[in-house]
């Protein structure tokens, strides 16, 4: 078994550094399982959203899904996040090739794209609150909407901080078998967030605009 503290070169770097030690294997599997649990968590949030969609106080003339969502904004947000998933794939590709600098470059771009997405989301929520008085407390619809989309946004924020922390912590010491699995797992998390967004885009925004 490989040693955690060992120093590597391009030639000695293993093919699957994310699974090279027992600790790494455990982390890899444990994280996949965790994502299984997260899937159920989001499934529950989606189910609730569908049950409470457009549920507002009777005779209140509050804005409904078809009134508030706009395609251009969410389209741009979606593009940002999907691209960030791609850039994180590049980062991991370079991690596997022991190209530390390039990995940092692509993770850096990932973070910028993610931050852009988050910025748009903040703008969007603010817009709904002020233009449509569609708030977290105004109706069951509002609560369900902000909870589902906000949980996702919270995951994005956490993912950003996580990747950033890893980058700062390891900036000076290059890749080894201790931190490679950490980068790998963080990118898995990032992909998961992206997949969830695809569902949110479809179920909340596209289906919402249809009515």
């Amino acid at each position, binding site marked *: 078994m490989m040693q955690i503290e060992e120093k590597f070169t391009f030639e000695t770097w293993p093919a699957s550094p994310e699974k090279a030690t027992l600790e790494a294997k455990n982390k890899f599997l444990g994280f996949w399982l965790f994502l299984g649990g997260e899937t159920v968590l989001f499934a529950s949030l989606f189910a609730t959203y569908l049950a*409470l969609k457009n549920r507002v106080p009777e005779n209140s003339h509050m804005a409904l899904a078809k009134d508030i969502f706009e395609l251009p904004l969410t389209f741009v947000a979606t593009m940002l996040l999907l691209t960030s998933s791609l850039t994180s794939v590049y980062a991991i590709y370079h991690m596997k090739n022991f190209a530390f600098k390039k990995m940092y470059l692509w993770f850096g771009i990932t973070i910028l794209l993610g931050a852009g997405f988050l910025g748009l989301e903040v703008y969007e929520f603010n817009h709904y609150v002020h233009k449509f008085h569609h708030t977290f407390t105004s109706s069951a619809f509002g609560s369900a909407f902000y909870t589902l989309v906000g949980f996702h946004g919270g995951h994005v924020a956490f993912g950003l901080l996580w990747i950033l922390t890893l980058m700062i912590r390891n900036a000076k010491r290059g890749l080894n078998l201790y931190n490679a699995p950490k980068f790998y797992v963080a990118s898995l998390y990032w992909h998961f967030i992206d997949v969830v967004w695809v569902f949110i885009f479809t179920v909340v925004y596209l289906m919402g605009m249809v009515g």
Partner: protein
Amino acid sequence: MSTNTQRKGFGSTLWGFLTTVDHKKIAILYLIAGGFFFLVGGIEAMFIRIQLSEPNNHFVSAAEYNQIMTMHGTTMIFLAAMPLVFAFMNAVMPLQIGARDVAFPFLNALGFWLFLFGGLFLNCSWFLGGAPDAGWTNYASLAMNSKGHGVDFYVLGLQITGIGTLIGGINFLVTIINMRAPGMTYMRMPLFTWTTFVTSGMILFAFPPLTVGLVFMMFDRLFGAKFYEVAFGGNTVIWEHLFWVFGHPEVYILILPAFGIFSEVFAMFSRKRLFGYSSMVFATVLIGFLGFMVWAHHMFTTGLGPVANSIFAIATMAIGVPTGIKIFNWLFTMWGGSVKFTTPMHYAVAFIPSFVAGGVTGIMLASAAADYQYHDTYFVVAHFHYVIVGGVVFALLAGTHLYWPKMFGTMLNEVLGKITFWFFLIGFHLTFFVQHLLGLWGMPRRVFTYLPGQGLDTANFVSTIGAFLMATGVTIMLVNIVMTTVKNEKVSHDPWGDGRTLEWSISSPPPFYNFKQLPLVRGLDAYWLEKMEGKDGMIPAEPIGDIHMPNSSFIPFMISLGLFIAAFGAMYHAEHSNWAFPLMFIGLLITFGSMFLRSVKDDHGFHIHKEELMNDNKGVEV
């Protein structure tokens, strides 16, 4: 190691437990904490039974009764049964698969501290204005209208505890998948390990819906959301679904490990290989799967309609099949064996008729049309206590006697053990059998009193007497524990003489690294196989070498403490915004600060060197 055998002061022992990441010590923590909450829940049960011992009683008021009844159920399920099950999983499963520790020792400790702080938070409610009072199911239609902070304690406390349980589940899954000793294939895993495996998978998928339901309730009650506010378009049935999507799997999460313990007991004390091992594994997996398909049998009277009710009724009855398979396999294991009636075996034998009775009433309740009669009566209370006490608690008591020597190195007194058993068994049937009748006679559950002259007096009185017998049994067991600990007579690695699985091949308690050399597993009942060939130890699968061990850490404690503090802040923010928000902030800062510290501070663990191991005669004894 020599330091290990030196006498330690109280302070360093305490610090050792506060920072431990060793699965065996964490098991002891779970046993102590779970045992403590079991006593608390037991005292609450006694209060319930004293109040109901005669009609028009005023031992407690109606409002107090609701709190006691709610806290009894919540405590028993989340704070007693779950952690006690986790105690045995931690103590035994890693040894059974021949591992030196679990996959994530740090997370293992974190899971425990989250559970403990969540449980303490919940119980703080008694001293801070009243406990939750909407039943352990906390239906939103009741809970949203509950005054004071009781329900907030429920919501936040269970949230913290639940995260701990989820972490534990993931940890056990990875441990079993990745850390089995050479030769330990899936179909050679002892049944307790199998049930731990399936249970952990169920935890992974069952707890997130509860988390979501609790988040909604927290948002509604504390932050003005409208999930369950009908006037704002909300819907209280959502809580019922989320709760039972969690809640039904939860009862299997409790009973499967109980099945696991009994499978070990039957094989050990019949001195025979478990009958139908593969069908037992298959039945366990099937139960785990079907457990997710039946949640709406708790909601027959909610009004989901005849089609939904029929589907869930049939799915529920289907679970009887794999369970029946198990019952027959246990009976056939005893058949023709040379049965030894130790204390654990007493519980195992008594478990079969008790649990079957609970199963039969379960099938009755599953008949949706008939359930309109039984629903919310004492018949239901009788049913679930027959499965939960007759199944889970019997197994926990059996497990306590069975694994005590492995955990503490001493043997509980068998005579006192059997006395405990008889008090508990008789008390149990006396308490709960008559509750079937009370239910059929029309006594509703969750009522604080009843009127005289309705034919309910005698049965209620009998039920209370039974409860006192059970309490006597438990008290005798506590005496037994104290006596055994004071006497402190150490036992060997295989104190029952009938050990079949790997945990009995190493000393009691095992050294902190468990196996000096990983054992080679040559079949089911690995240790028994070696004994049958005249050896008294396992064949090592590796030469003696350095062993890598994780470092202790105080961070799990701090992460959990932070959430405990933050929960108070969240709860009081509406009426005391001047200090509650800062408190919440401080709590979260402690939690996330500790997590941050953990992630930036490298922790490579340490090595026990070969030379030290050579001088140490624990580990694999040959």
